[in-house]
Each structure stands twice: as structure tokens, then as C-alpha cells.
């Protein structure tokens, strides 16, 4: 290293004497010339056609494979059979009952769990003693895999909509509680001081400081919660139900109607994507309303 340094400074002196060209030749082992790697972005239509191409290619391979006997169509089914079943599923009228059932359990569970959880988390602001007493229970509840409680919930709430809502609520409630409480804990004590120095009551501090301060925390779990609520609803339907997409999947699997499993999974994913997109939109609207 030291040797190189000396030679480089020699080179620098040489440059002064003989000009640049000879200076470069005097340098030992010139560094390789490297440019910043440039990645050229494809146009949107090219990206989309690539995506569609992969989908069509995959489906075609699957169909051809099933017809040629490379893929066992009994276990894996095949796209043409899935399309036929899809038409039947929507034609028979069961589809909309199932979709609406799963949708309602998810939405109710999401709303109840998020609201109750957020309120519970915010309530910890009111009393440090109360928070200290209740907190271990909340953490305990968090560590229990809530889905393991699903059979119990079904027993208590029956096989109707209520039990699915209950499972979805159980999954979302704890997440919202802990997040809202994290917001409460992040509150700057000086902010409270300011409010009290202005003669504020506890309720005024809560309404005008604590709630608006914690809203971004509460909003940030909405997207997580909609996914959790859907999982809860489906698991509830797996255990015991008369309707719903979860029940349709379980029923189809038990009767070896693999095409129907695929159909129900496809419908379910579409439902999930629609709800996720809606919640994301609501979230961005709320964020615009709540500056932080």
C-alpha cells in the first residue's frame, strides 16, 4: 500500500512535469474503468404483456400436460374443467350466498376487532395502574395462537355467522390493541404538559391530543387486520359452517372435486384483493385527513 502511494505521488509530480498523457502511462496498474450500471425500464404495455404471457403460457402448459397425461388431472384438475366448474358455480346460485357470507363475517369481524381493540389500547392512557394491571393479560392473549381457540369459539357461538365474526374479531382485536397502546406510549409528556398548562381537563387532553396523535398508529394496522379477519372467517368456516367460501373449499376437497377447490380459492383471492384495495384506499383517504 505504502509503495503504491509513493508511486502515485510520483505520478502526480510527473503529471506536472510532462502533461497528462505521459502521467497516465507512468501510473502503475490503472484501475479498470467502470460505469454506473444502467437498467432500462420497459414500457408499461411491455411489462403487462409479459405478465399476461406468463399467465397464458402457464395455463396452456397445465392444460396440455393434463391432456397428455404428464399431470394427473384427478389431483391437479385442469384449466378447462375449472372454467366449466366456475360457470356452474356462479350459475347455480350458491356462489353469491357463499361470497356474501364470507364477506359479511370478515367485515363485521374487522370492524368490531379494530374498533374495540383501538379503544382498548387508547384506554390505557387513562390510568397507568390500570395499564400495568391489564397489560400482561393482553400480551398473554397476543401469544396464544387465536386460531387454536376457533373450535371453542364455534362451540360457544354456534355454526352461524356469529361464530365466524367472533374468530375474525379475536384475530384483529389484539393487533389493534397493541398498536394503539404503542401510540399511547409514544406520546410526548411535554405535549400533555402544554395542554394542562392551558387548564385542560383529562377528557380534553384525550380528545384533542391522545386520539389524534394515535390515529396514524390505528390506521396503519387496517390493511393487516383485513387480511387477518378474512383468515379468521375462513378458518371458522372450515371447522363448522353451512355457508361460505371456506366451507365450499372444504366440501369440494372432501368430495374430490378439485376443480371446485380451485374455483373457490380463485373467488376467495379475488374477494381478498378487492377488500385489501378498498381498505388501502380508505387508509390513504384517512391519512390525508390526519396530517402527521
Amino acid at each position, binding site marked *: 500500500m505504502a509503495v503504491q502511494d509513493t508511486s502515485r505521488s510520483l505520478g502526480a509530480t510527473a503529471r506536472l512535469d510532462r502533461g497528462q498523457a505521459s502521467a497516465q502511462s507512468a501510473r502503475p496498474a490503472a484501475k479498470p474503468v467502470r460505469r454506473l450500471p444502467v437498467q432500462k425500464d420497459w414500457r408499461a404495455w411491455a411489462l403487462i404483456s409479459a405478465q399476461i404471457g406468463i399467465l397464458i403460457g402457464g395455463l396452456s402448459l397445465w392444460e396440455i400436460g393434463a391432456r397428455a397425461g404428464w399431470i394427473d388431472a384427478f389431483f391437479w384438475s385442469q384449466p378447462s374443467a375449472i372454467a366449466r366448474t366456475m360457470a356452474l358455480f356462479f350459475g347455480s346460485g350458491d356462489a353469491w350466498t357463499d361470497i356474501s357470507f364470507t364477506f359479511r363475517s370478515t367485515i363485521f369481524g374487522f370492524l368490531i376487532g379494530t374498533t374495540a381493540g383501538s379503544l382498548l389500547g387508547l384506554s390505557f392512557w387513562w390510568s397507568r395502574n390500570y395499564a400495568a394491571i391489564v397489560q400482561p393479560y393482553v400480551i398473554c392473549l397476543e401469544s396464544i395462537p387465536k386460531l387454536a381457540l376457533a373450535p371453542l369459539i364455534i362451540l360457544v357461538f354456534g355454526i352461524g355467522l356469529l361464530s365466524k365474526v367472533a374468530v375474525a374479531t379475536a384475530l384483529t382485536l389484539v393487533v389493534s390493541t397493541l398498536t394503539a397502546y404503542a401510540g399511547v406510549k409514544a406520546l410526548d409528556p411535554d405535549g400533555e404538559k402544554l395542554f394542562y*398548562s392551558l387548564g385542560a381537563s383529562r377528557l380534553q387532553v384525550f380528545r384533542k391530543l391522545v386520539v389524534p396523535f394515535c390515529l396514524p398508529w390505528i390506521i396503519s394496522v387496517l390493511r393487516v387486520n383485513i387480511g387477518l379477519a378474512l383468515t379468521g372467517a375462513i378458518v371458522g368456516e372450515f371447522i363448522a359452517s353451512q355457508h361460505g367460501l371456506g366451507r365450499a373449499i372444504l366440501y369440494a376437497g372432501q368430495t374430490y372435486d378439485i376443480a371446485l377447490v380451485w374455483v373457490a380459492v380463485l373467488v376467495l383471492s379475488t374477494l381478498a384483493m378487492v377488500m385489501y384495495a378498498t381498505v388501502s384506499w380508505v387508509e390513504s383517504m384517512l391519512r390525508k385527513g390526519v396530517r*402527521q
Partner: protein
Amino acid sequence: MSSLAPKLCVADVSMTFQTPTGAFHALAPITLSIPQGRFVSLIGPSGCGKTTIFNIIAGLLEPTGGRVLIEGVDATGTIGRVGYMLQKDLLLPWRTVLDNVILGMEIQHVSLRAARERALPLLHRYGLAGFEYLYPNALSGGMRQRAALLRTLLFDTDVILLDEPFGALDAQTKLRMQEWLLQLWSDFNKTVLFVTHDVEEAIYLSDEVHVMGTRPGRIIANIPVPLARPRIRGSVLTGEFLAIKERCLELLHLEGTASEQINEAA
């Protein structure tokens, strides 16, 4: 003047905190008496209990001993009696500048419309025109401090406590803000208690400077500033000003050496 009770009186206020290692005397009994309309500064090394005094006067901390009197009435441990501007501006990021400034009035149940109507002309007059409907994160440090100070003034108390309001500002902004504060003070006729680390700032702004010492926090000297008002920037270079400044610095230096000796002994 002398027949009236002083606007703000801190009578023998002391503060002792219980810590795991024993009692910590934050404030030795301190007495301050401030007449209506005065501008009084507290200077002292960090940890001398300046913020503790403010918290006690604002009612956010119950003193171990002594009383706080406002216009002769006992106000110890009662909140909402004085305007208090903490070190941080504490503007609420989800409110516009206008709605931040009216916070005090809003808490006192003034209707939003009436509060906004009162605040708007003041925002215009005191250098926040055009910022009324912006959110605080769009404001510079100086502008944020202006908003925080107007919020304190609009709370409509005669006494206001300012805890190092310009501590975090750059030198030029600080000078402009001092002029601005003096303007506000003479327009609103408030009684101001001002905490700062900056000796020159304290003298330039105040009628009286109290120099504080540490361990325990106490007032070691009360230095009147008889300079004529309105003051001009050039007055900081006059012999009179420099003499006061020298006296303050000397007291602070002596105090600093004394507490170092205590530290070495301990």
C-alpha cells in the same frame, strides 16, 4: 404601584425530589416578586432548576414548600393561571397554524369561530400572514416559535412564562425574534418571566435579571437593567450594558467554580 400586590409572587418555594439515592434538593427556598408589566429573566447554569420553577408556577408540579401567589391570591398547584411556553414549540402536526394558535381558547370553551376571528388579525400583524392554513411541518424554526408564542399570548393570561424560546434558533433569527418579542410585550402589556442561557439576550430584553446558582438551585443575585426603552440593537455595545453583562458573567463564573469545587470535594 407599591401599594398593589405584585402580579406574580413566588414565596419561599422549595423543591426536593426523592430519588433512590436519597433526597435531591432541586430548589432551595426561592422568593421572586414581579410587578405588573415587568420583563424579568432568569439565567443560570443548566440544572439550576429554572424549568422546575416554571413547572411549579404553571401548577404542573407541587412544590415541597412555599406558595405561588398571583395578584395576591394563592395559586399553588392550580393549572391554567399563567401562559407557559415550553422549550419545544409543541405545535400539533395535525392542526393548521391557525388552529394551533387558538388551542388555549378552545380549551377554555371559546367557540371555534370566535377564537379564529380573534386569532386571524394577530397572525397577520405578527408575521404569520400567509401561513394561517399551513401545517406546522411546512414552517421554519423561527415561524414555529412565533406560532407557539402567539398560542401562549392568546391564552389570555397576564403572566407568561417563556422557557428558552429562542434556544434552538440561529443567531440572525434569534435577533429578529427578540425584536418581535419586545414588540409583542409592549403591545400586550404582559408580565413576562423569561429563562435563557444567553446573558446578552437576558439583559437586552429584561427590566431585571436574576442570576441563579446550582446545587441546590437558588437565586444568587438580582440585577436591575436600567436601560431606556424602547431599546435599540446598538445599546448592547454601550458601557452601561457591558458593565451589567460583565457583572452577570462574573457571578456565573464564580458560581461555576464553586460548584466544581463541591464536585471535587464530593
